[in-house]
């Protein structure tokens, strides 16, 4: 490229930048562009949940020791599950086959999560299984008759500095507590707030009148890790583990095919 053309290209680029700057300063509130800018500016009023949040393994393990109060139907499911374990079944879940856990357990996997605030939606990105939850904060209602999704269908709103998330449409393959799967009646409410500058608490309330006599409430804690980056997690990269349809585990000892 000769120097004359380089000069022309730079000049054109500079004039494009300056016209964008002029256009920005002229967007009045009430214009589409002005409204868009106002919606983004409002995000600055939300709490700072930037960065990478690591789950507290100890707290999350303790959650798994908590037991809901079951209906007769729910208790029968747990009993059948435990009887299966005595036969060597129900020892391994579908996560061993790289099927993601979905809600609620997607929020308490051992690896970190991050939050992205945008006008109209909060995105929750989880490292484990590289999952994304979309929590719509644009005022829409929950869907009436949603297709089952692993991460459900979520709407959210801010109650002061706490994010309240309501979810329905949870895939019946999802495990709510050991031996008990979601139903069409399952609803999950999450309250997420910053307990300390680098600590988030997620209070999860699972309601399902077919399974539980009263809502089942657990709490998880997350710590902001200032020097971490999110990593890729593709489960099918080199999975040697498996669960058969009865939940019996197996593991291959063959080498993976990657170098």
């Amino acid at each position, binding site marked *: 490229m000769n120097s004359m053309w380089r000069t022309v290209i730079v000049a054109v680029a500079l004039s494009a930048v300056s016209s964008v700057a002029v256009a920005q300063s002229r967007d009045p509130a009430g214009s589409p562009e002005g409204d868009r800018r106002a919606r983004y500016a409002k995000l600055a009023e939300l709490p700072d949940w930037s960065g990478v949040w690591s789950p507290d393994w*100890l707290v999350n393990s303790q959650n798994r020791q908590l037991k809901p109060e079951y209906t007769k139907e729910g208790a029968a499911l747990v009993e059948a599950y435990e009887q299966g374990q005595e036969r060597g079944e129900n020892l391994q*879940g579908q996560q061993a086959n790289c099927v993601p856990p979905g809600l609620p357990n997607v929020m308490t996997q051992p*690896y970190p999560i991050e939050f992205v605030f945008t006008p109209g939606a909060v995105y929750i990105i989880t490292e484990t299984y590289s999952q994304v939850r979309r929590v719509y904060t644009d005022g829409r209602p929950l869907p009436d008759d949603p297709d089952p999704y692993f991460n459900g269908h979520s709407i959210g709103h801010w109650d002061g500095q706490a994010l309240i998330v309501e979810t329905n449409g949870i895939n019946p393959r999802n495990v709510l507590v050991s031996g008990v799967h979601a139903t069409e009646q399952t609803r999950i409410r999450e309250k997420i707030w910053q307990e300390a500058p680098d600590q988030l608490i997620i209070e999860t309330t699972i309601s399902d009148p077919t399974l539980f006599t009263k809502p089942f409430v657990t709490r998880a804690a997350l710590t902001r890790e200032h020097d971490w980056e999110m990593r890729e997690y593709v489960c099918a990269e080199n999975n040697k583990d498996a669960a058969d349809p009865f939940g019996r585990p197996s593991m291959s000892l063959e080498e993976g095919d990657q170098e």
Partner: protein
Amino acid sequence: MTRAVASWAGAIALVGVAVSASAHHSTAMFEWGKEVALKNATVERWEWTNPHTFLYVSVPKAGGGTERWAFEGMSPSHLSRAGWDKRSLKPGDKIDLTYFALRDGRKGGFNISVTFPDGRVIRQLPVGVSSGDAAR
């Protein structure tokens, strides 16, 4: 950490409640918590992959020759934040290791620690974490 969470964590540590070791599978296949040693191993292959790392080694057999062992490990997501990386082990490295054995008797298990000839030790899980995730 809030006081409530701190005391909760403390209570768990005291009673030794199972601590999640894996995002991916249960520990039912292994003699989880029963750490045994394999000495004089030579690294053949180190798979730095999700959902688990894998370590293949050879060890001398009584009476001559070698035999191959295979060990699952934690994921790069966990290990990269515990000081490990894709070059932590390489073919030819001489190591001693500890593991939780496979229940089915095959030559393998879940790797817990690796000790190098200079005495340096790297661990897959923190000291004291020896019980596993329930099936989920």
